C-alpha cells in the first residue's frame, strides 16, 4: 500500500469537471495561437494566397506548386545553404565549443574573474534583440565602428563585405551563454575523483577530456546541440542587423520567409517554406524530447516563441 500512500487521491480527482475547467483556458489559448496556426500553415502552403491583388480575394489551391517552385528557386536554395552555414558555424561549432571552453576553464574557479566573465556572457544573452542588434551595427560600422578603430582598418565594411561571418560571430556572441551554463552544470556533476584518477594515471588534459569528461556529459552535449541548433535555425534577430542583405547574401530562412511572404506579399509561398521549417523543427524537437524523457536531465527546455 505504500505505493498508494505516495499518491493519495487528490482533491480534484473526484471532480474531473473541475480539472477540465482549470486546464481548459490554457488549452484554448494554445489551441488557437499555436496548434491552429501550425495546421493552417499546411493549408496556406498549398494555395497561391497573396497579401494583395486578385489572389488575396480569391486564393486557389495549387497543390504542391509552391514546393516545386521553391525547390527550383535559386534564392531559396541559396538561403537554405546560408542557414546550414549559420547553424553549423554559429551554434554547433561556435556556441557549443566556446561555451564548453569557458565552462571548462572556469570550472573550479571562484571569485570575481568567474563572476565577471559569466556576467558578461549572460548579459549578451539576456539583452533585448533590438538593443544587441544596434550594438553590433555600431561595432561593425564602416566609418566610425569601434572594430575598425581598434584594428586600424578604417573603411572596412564588415556587414557589406562579409555579412555571413559577421552574423555568425554575432550569434556566437549572442548565444554562448546557454551552452556555457549547461556545460557548467554538467561539469560540476563529473565526480572529481574520476578526473583525479585519470590525472594520477598520467592523462593529459586532452586525454582527460576525451576519456573522462565527454563520456560523462554525452547526454548534455546532445541536449545542448539539439536546442541551440533549433533556436539558431529559427533566429530572426539577424534581420535587425543585415535584413538579409546585401543582395540576399545573409538571407537565412527566417529572414527569407519574412521578405518573401510579408514584405513581398506571397503568403501562400511563404507558408509552404514555413511548413518546411516546421518539419525541420519537428525533427529537432522530437529528438530532444526523446532524450529528455529518457533522462529527465537538469536541463528542462525553455520555449522558443
Amino acid at each position, binding site marked *: *500500500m*505504500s505505493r*498508494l500512500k505516495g499518491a*493519495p487521491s487528490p482533491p480534484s480527482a*473526484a471532480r474531473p469537471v473541475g480539472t477540465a475547467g482549470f486546464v481548459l483556458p490554457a488549452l484554448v489559448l494554445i489551441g488557437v495561437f499555436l496548434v491552429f496556426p501550425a495546421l493552417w500553415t499546411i493549408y496556406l502552403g498549398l494555395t497561391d494566397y497573396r497579401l494583395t491583388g486578385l489572389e488575396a480575394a480569391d486564393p486557389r489551391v495549387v497543390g504542391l506548386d509552391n514546393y516545386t517552385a521553391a525547390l527550383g528557386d535559386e534564392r531559396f536554395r541559396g538561403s537554405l545553404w546560408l542557414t546550414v552555414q549559420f547553424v553549423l558555424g554559429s551554434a554547433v561549432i561556435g556556441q557549443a565549443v566556446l561555451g564548453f571552453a569557458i565552462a571548462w576553464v572556469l570550472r573550479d574557479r571562484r571569485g570575481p574573474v568567474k563572476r565577471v566573465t559569466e556576467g558578461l556572457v549572460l548579459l549578451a544573452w539576456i539583452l533585448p534583440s533590438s538593443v544587441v542588434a544596434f550594438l553590433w551595427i555600431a561595432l561593425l560600422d564602416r566609418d566610425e565602428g569601434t572594430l575598425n578603430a581598434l584594428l586600424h582598418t578604417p573603411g572596412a565594411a564588415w556587414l557589406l563585405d562579409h555579412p555571413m561571418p559577421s552574423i555568425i560571430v554575432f550569434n556566437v556572441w549572442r548565444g554562448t551563454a546557454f551552452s556555457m551554463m549547461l556545460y557548467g552544470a554538467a561539469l560540476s556533476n563529473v565526480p572529481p575523483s574520476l578526473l583525479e584518477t585519470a590525472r594520477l594515471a598520467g592523462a593529459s588534459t586532452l586525454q582527460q577530456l576525451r576519456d573522462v569528461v565527454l563520456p560523462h556529459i554525452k547526454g548534455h552535449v546532445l541536449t545542448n546541440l539539439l536546442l541551440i541548433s533549433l533556436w539558431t535555425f529559427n533566429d530572426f534577430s539577424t534581420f535587425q542587423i543585415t535584413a538579409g542583405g546585401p543582395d540576399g547574401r545573409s538571407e537565412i530562412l527566417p529572414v527569407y520567409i519574412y521578405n518573401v511572404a510579408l514584405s513581398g506579399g506571397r503568403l501562400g509561398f511563404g507558408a509552404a517554406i514555413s511548413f518546411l521549417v516546421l518539419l525541420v523543427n519537428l525533427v529537432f524537437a522530437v529528438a530532444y524530447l526523446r532524450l529528455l524523457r529518457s533522462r529527465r536531465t537538469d536541463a528542462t527546455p525553455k520555449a522558443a516563441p
Partner: protein
Amino acid sequence: MIALRGLTKEFPGGVRALDGLDLEIADGEFFALLGPSGCGKTTLLRTIAGLETPTSGNIWIGGTEVTSVPPGKRDVAMVFQDYALFPHMDVTANIAYPLRIRKVPRSRREARAAETASRLSLSELLSRRPGQLSGGQQQRVALARAVACHPRAFLFDEPLSNLDARLRLEARTFLKRLQRELAVTTVFVTHDQGEALALADRIAVMSAGRFTQVGTPTEVFQRPANTFTAAFIGSTPMNLLPGTAGDGALRVAGAVLPLPGGVPDGPIVYGVRPEYMDLSPTPRADAFAGKVAVVENLGTAHLVTLESREHLIQAVVPEGAEPSAGTAAWAVPRPGRGLVYRDDRLVSPSPANGENR
C-alpha cells in the same frame, strides 16, 4: 464515538485497501491502528477523515452518519505524518488557521492560539516560522493546531515517526498526558507495536485490509488471536513452532509439554515469547534442546538464539546468566505462558478462566 460498518475501499486497479471493516471506538478512547506498511491503516485513517471515499460501507462520527460528508464538515482534526505546517505562516497563524476558516474574529482566534500554545509550552515560539522550529516543536505546533479547534476526534498519522529515538519517548509521554487531559476520542496510526502498546487504550492490528485482532494492549500482547498478530507484537518476535497435540501432551520440536485443556488432538502451532523462556544447563524433557548459536546483548538482558534441530528458538535471559556461544542449553517455557494455535487461531484457554495448573 466512531463506528464503521462493512467499510471497504478499493483503489483503481483492484487493490483492496480496506476489506469489510467493522469497528466501534468509544468516546474519549485512545485507539491505535497498528500494522506493517501496506496493511491499509493509513487508508482507514484517511477514510475516517473523509480524504478517501469508501467504495462501500458506512462511517459514523458522534452518532451522525458522515460517509458522504466532506472532510471539513466532519469536525475532526488530523495531524499528518509530515505535520503539514504551512511554511509561510508563523506559529500563531498556523494554530489559528482552523479558526480562521470558521470565521472566528482575528483577535479572538489569536487569543485562543496563544492559550493553546501555552498549554503545549509553545508560548516562546509564537512568532516563528515552521522552518525555524525543531522536529519536536513542529510536532507540538501540529498538535496545538488540532487542539485549538476543539474537534470531536483527533486523527494522527504516525505522529511520532518523524522524531529521533530519544525525543520520541518524551513526545509519547506528552501525547498520552495530553489525550488524557482533553479526553477527546483519538485514532492514531502506527507501524511501531511498542508505540501502540504504550499509548493506546485499545489496538486494532491490521493486515491486508482486515483487522486481525482488536483488543487492549494486554490482550493483544498476552493472547494474540492468530500467528500474524503473535509475530507482529512484541519487541522480540514470538517463537512459533509446529507440533502435535495428543495423548495428553504437546510434542513440539523434541520437547514434551503439558497439554492445556480444551485443545483437541491434531497438528498445532506452539507459541511462546522469548521473555517467557528460561534456560536450563541440564537436560529436561519439557525443554527445547539446542546449541547456543548467537548471544545478543539487550542491555538489561540477553537474547539467546538456540539451534534446535531444524528450528531456531530464542530466549531472553537476565544479565549475568547468559551462556556462551557453542554450549548446549535447554529452553524451558514458563508454565501457562505457552499459546496453542490450530488453523491459525488461538485455541488454548486464557490462564485466568482455564484449567491453569
